């Protein structure tokens, strides 16, 4: 059954077994639940990748109410249809957006948001940590660099190109790699004198990890304080009012600055909804919705018009509600593309159906679109990367063609 078949895509490559290697130690972490990394790209196009850690429930965020099996699988997690009280927000029939994503819905109505449904990476791991590693590596194994960093190498014209920037106390694997990525986080103003800071830098220069870190950190602070002025967020984490919202807004402003970063990675957690999903998912989606709105506001209309925001997660969740009013780790889910450069206003899916025999391993939404084809399309059509660079970002994906029609011509 195909509800909406705007562009026929087909099943991803051969099914892969769970990876045997020992992984998970190096899995990325987030501070205060949120983190942001930037880099510099040539040209005018802006790209923000938002990682949702924990496994966003795609069937909860974008509900296929037109599928006759949906309500039966989901029980109380299936919200009323669009137009009813507490119902989902209409996406043109058959799919409804979770009501906590009202600002995303407004973008959708303005043709600036696109939903890709039944999408998954090429891996079939239901481990958060393996799946996050592979999602960020852009490969079927954990690599030492992320696909967005490898794309940056091409944008910058090589590892020695103009340096980029990272916001948050850490850089996610997605942004690690040969292209230089600098790092910014909200901080109290430093009380160290320039002379003392120079001595500290000299002392750390011989350390292979701390030497480059202290030098790059200072460069970034100079840039960010010039760009953000007195409005810079002063702290990280919940207690100090940091977190995803302020980081996203700061990211937007930095990206709108002349000479500012063109590529950013933002992340946030809170999507691992095993228990009482109704309340928890609504809260996490509200935070996402507000953060995305803040990002847009920080950028301003002119920059937003040249922007693509790609929202991805490590996996979807089980099609059936579990025994504790939540959902467990699954396979396919949704990706969102937002921004003035997106050819939005549609749900793009080769819908696999939720009925008898349609679920992947009789439990998950079956993947019919390879996430790599979506990301490759953004790199090719939005950042205008040549085919070799797109392939280098996603090694071993030669058989996966970039999707068409995602980006405004």
């Amino acid at each position, binding site marked *: 059954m195909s509800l909406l078949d705007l562009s026929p895509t087909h099943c991803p490559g051969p099914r892969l077994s769970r990876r045997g290697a020992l992984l998970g130690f*190096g899995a990325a972490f987030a501070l205060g639940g949120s983190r942001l990394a930037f880099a510099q790209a040539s040209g005018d196009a802006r790209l923000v990748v938002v990682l949702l850690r924990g496994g966003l429930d795609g069937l909860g965020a974008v509900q296929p109410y037109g599928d006759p099996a949906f309500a039966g699988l989901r029980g109380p997690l299936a919200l009323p249809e669009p137009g009813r009280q507490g119902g989902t927000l209409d996406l043109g029939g058959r799919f409804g957006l979770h009501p906590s994503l009202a600002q995303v819905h407004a973008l959708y109505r303005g043709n600036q948001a696109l939903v890709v449904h039944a999408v998954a990476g090429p891996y079939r791991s*239901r481990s*958060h940590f393996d799946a996050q590693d592979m999602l960020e590596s852009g490969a079927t194994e954990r690599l030492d660099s992320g696909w967005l960093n490898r794309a940056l190498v091409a944008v910058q014209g090589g590892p020695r190109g103009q340096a980029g920037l990272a916001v948050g106390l850490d850089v996610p694997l997605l942004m690690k790699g040969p292209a230089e990525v600098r790092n910014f986080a909200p901080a*109290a103003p430093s009380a160290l004198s320039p002379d003392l800071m120079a001595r500290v830098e000299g002392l750390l220069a011989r350390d292979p990890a701390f030497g480059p870190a202290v030098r*790059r950190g200072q460069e*970034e602070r100079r840039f960010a304080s010039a760009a953000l002025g007195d409005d810079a967020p002063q702290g990280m984490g919940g207690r100090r009012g940091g977190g995803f919202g302020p980081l996203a807004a700061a990211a937007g402003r930095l990206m709108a600055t002349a000479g500012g970063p063109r590529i950013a990675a933002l992340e946030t957690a809170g999507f691992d909804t095993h228990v009482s999903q109704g309340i928890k998912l609504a809260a996490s989606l509200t935070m996402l919705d507000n953060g995305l709105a803040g990002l847009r506001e920080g950028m301003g209309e002119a920059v937003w018009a040249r922007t693509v925001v790609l929202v991805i997660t490590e996996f979807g969740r089980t099609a059936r509600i579990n*025994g504790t009013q939540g959902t467990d780790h699954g396979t396919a889910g949704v990706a969102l593309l937002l921004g003035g450069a997106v050819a939005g206003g549609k749900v793009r899916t080769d819908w696999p159906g939720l009925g008898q025999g349609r679920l992947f391993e009789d439990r998950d939404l079956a993947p019919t679109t390879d996430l790599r084809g979506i990301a490759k399309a953004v790199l090719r059509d939005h950042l205008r990367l040549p085919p070799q660079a797109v392939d280098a970002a996603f090694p071993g994906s030669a058989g996966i063609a970039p999707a068409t029609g995602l980006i405004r011509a």
Partner: protein
Amino acid sequence: MDPRASIAAIRFGLGRRPDDPVPGDPVAWLDRQVTLPSPQRQLPGLAAPLSQAQAAALYQQRAMATRGENGPARREIRAATDGDALGWVAHCLLSDAPFQDRLTNFWANHFTVSRRVPNAGMFVGPLIREVIRPNLFNRYEDLLLAAARQPGLIVYLSNGRSSGPNSQAAMRPGNNTRRGLNENLAREILELHTVSPAAGYTQEDVTSFARILTGWRIDRGDEAAAFRFSNRQHEPGEKVLLGRRFPEGEQGAVEALRFLARHPATHRHIATKLARHFVADDPPREAVARIEAVFRDTGGDLAAVSRALIRLPQAWAPPLSKVRDPLDYVLAVGRGLGFGPDQAEWLVQAMEDCGQPLWKAPQPNGWPDVATEWAQPEALLHRIQWAHAVSGRVAQRRDPRGFAAATLGPLASPEMLREAARAGSAQDAYTLVLVSPEYLRR
């Protein structure tokens, strides 16, 4: 000072306090700590450590408290857990058996229960004191079993309401809330606490193990919550996990956990984590193989494993290769400056400012243990700013070089000592000691 004495204190301990005696035989000093830890004391000015029963009573109160994250009951419960965390930090500051405390923090990270799930947060301190420390030098399977029965993991990994699809609870007439499986705890025990994905288990194994663990919950009794096996929620029948059969009932889960703890893939997994912690981010193969062999040959005897760690030649080779994570760094600075319990609150805040809020790991796999995750530009600048603030508090002492010698011994580099001597103020000099590579590493 023998560099080995410094390495023992820094790599195997939590950093030297200036008044710590210098052990003549560092290996023997560590060996003597391989013994049942003493109970965590109540320190002056701090609350008594929470017992598991007290934590369970808090859990019970929280469950009954009215909704809303900031109700008075919830604030009090959070304050009680904050106090418990302060007590643990103060203990670590003063400890004269810091190898035990390093191992305790290692296992607390291995069996992560995070305060980010508020219903589970009050159990972290009791997990440390009543599960990890008494089993620090027992067999791994005893530690695993005790951890898996502790309310913290059961709540954090949401097993409490998991019910077998054919259990009495699920079959009860009028069951319209569809009680059934929740596979979270089962998956994370397989992946994180025992065999790891290297064992090649399947989704079927995960589901089957979740069935084995049904009924493994905590009981909300009249006063306190405690582990209880609920036959009503338990999935009837025999189950198969990794090709082995396990019987119905509570005993099935006990046997399955023991089987997993004894699995060769678990030996390899834990040996790798330990070698990463004590030797290098990318641990040498021989070091992993050595620990793995001791694990295997002693039936997972953690005392033997600990003695073997102490005897890994690779762990004693300078220079210090591991990056101190914020927990380690802040504790090492606090110990080095001789801080007491009255500074604990400030130190807990520092851990958060430097990117590692205590007992609040973002995900069940805990905090990372590799330099690439900690030596990032902004995280380092936050540390430097904090080190400068600390230095302002102690600048009246006016002997930064003596401080460097007392805490780092021969590991203090000539460059750092020279810079500290040339600094324009005592605060600047202390700052330079505290942000030197040798203080940032372990």
